[in-house]
């Protein structure tokens, strides 16, 4: 059991071809092509329901999460960069006024205090989320190890960091990644939560512009909102497989 298994740290995560059900923020990971042939994704395409309760509330005393308006699926393609001081990423949601809503994913090194040693790590996210003062439960619930390359999907159930359902409206999703030391890439897109489905793609900028020379860390960031439906109990939750 190595550091790689710190994937265990993740709250709700990441199983190949798993349908997202039952609870708050799910992250799904599509295996790289080399192993995809053995994955059952095609047989059980995710059929996201609204996510029942239980988001990643920020404190133990937080109220039970409410059912959100539906499910937002955020998908991105990650490439592992071969250099040091890179491959840290965070994904988070803001409201239309730029107010922090919640974090869906943050690489565990930075999320768990690596910013002390590397203050240039994920600056935008840490500032917005005021991460240095985030409660331990929130840190534990979103921090995850660096992901493998491939297509990853995160699910946001439309609740905020305390588990309360957010109102209908426009929300901004961000993916920030460090490409090399202070160099970063920042994706920003807007998704509308309401009664209708909505999809969008995120725009990106390199910070500074020369960071583009570091290589592509993240690309193809998109979001898809599916209005709420009753949780379908026939949906597969996960797969058992050899490990």
């Amino acid at each position: 059991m190595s550091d790689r298994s710190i994937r265990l740290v993740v709250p709700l995560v990441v199983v190949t071809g798993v349908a997202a059900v039952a609870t708050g923020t799910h992250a799904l990971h599509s295996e790289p092509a080399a192993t995809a042939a053995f994955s059952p994704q095609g047989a059980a395409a995710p059929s996201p329901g609204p996510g029942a309760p239980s988001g990643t509330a920020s404190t133990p005393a937080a109220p039970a999460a409410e059912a959100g308006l539906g499910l937002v699926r955020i998908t991105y393609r990650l490439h592992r960069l071969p250099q040091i001081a890179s491959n840290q990423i965070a994904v988070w949601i803001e409201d239309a006024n730029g107010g922090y809503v919640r974090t869906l994913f943050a690489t565990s090194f930075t999320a768990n205090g690596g910013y002390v040693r590397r203050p240039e790590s994920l600056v935008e996210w840490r500032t917005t989320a005021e991460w240095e003062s985030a409660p331990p439960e929130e840190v534990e619930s979103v921090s995850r190890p660096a992901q493998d390359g491939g297509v990853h999907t995160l699910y946001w159930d439309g609740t905020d960091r305390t588990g309360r359902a957010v109102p209908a409206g426009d929300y901004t999703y961000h993916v920030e990644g460090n490409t090399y030391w202070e160099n970063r890439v920042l994706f920003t897109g807007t998704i509308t939560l309401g009664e209708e489905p909505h999809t969008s793609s995120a725009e990106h900028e390199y910070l500074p512009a020369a960071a583009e020379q570091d290589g592509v860390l993240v690309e193809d960031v998109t979001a898809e909102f599916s209005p709420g439906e009753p949780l379908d109990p026939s949906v597969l939750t996960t797969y058992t497989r050899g490990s």
Partner: protein
Amino acid sequence: MGTTVLVAGLDATGQAAVLGLLREAERIFSRFTADSDTSRVNAAAGRPTRVSPLFTAALAEACAHQAASGGLFDPFLAADLVRLGYDRDFAAVRSVPAAPAAPPRPAGGGAPPRVRIDHGVPEVALSPGLAVDLGGFVKGWAVQRAAGERMRAGAPRGLIDAGGDIAAWRGPGGAPWRIGVEHPLDTAPAGVLALPPVAAVATSSVVRRGWRDTAGARLHHIVDPRTGAPADSDCLQATVLAADLAAAEVYATCLVLLGTGDGPAWLAGRDPAAAWITVDRDGRVRRSADLDLHHEGAARP
């Protein structure tokens, strides 16, 4: 544990508790960190080593399974795994030099390993040369423990999945958790299970965590304690549905070791209530008759 975890159906406090326990298990049981209990016990050359209560509890249970299985399940195969090249985090295992042959196993299994477990201190001493690897067993053991804690805490429903080893529970009137059984050679699942109210499902496979040595021989992490070599039966993958995840993990491993012919009969003798699904080298799926109670046919397209 080199795996990913899905926690579903629990509130934030429950999630944090589960992940905290699994993180603690990672710290205690890793073979690849020098300060883990496992590494310190293995390096102690027979001297008593102070360990955490979790370590003594898991090791004692593993030893009980070893005894009950007649040694077919063996938690002391760390030296064999190192000899085969699995001596670091699996993500870092690459092509390794051709492994030397396993030392000959004494007829009849030889003398049982000497393991002294003192739960009071707590401390553990292994006979010199013996090295423990609770590996996949402790993953299931820790998940089962975490699930038990959440159930006792009153969580009405939950599912914890650590890399395909799954513990799930629900109220009697609740909708069943449905899980797929991945087929190692096919994109369609080997089956879909609607789990009973309290269930544990573990799968062992020789397809995952495989690597090659420089001579081209394919190796994998399921070592047959009878030979010291990777399991070589006709069973590529075995899934067991039981009441306890640590036991299910042991049973699934033993099915892979014994193959699709002898394995099911052995399991019926160990735990008649356990249900199973195997996939052989030709991709053929077999399952226990009682699994029909839970089997839902193929996954939905």
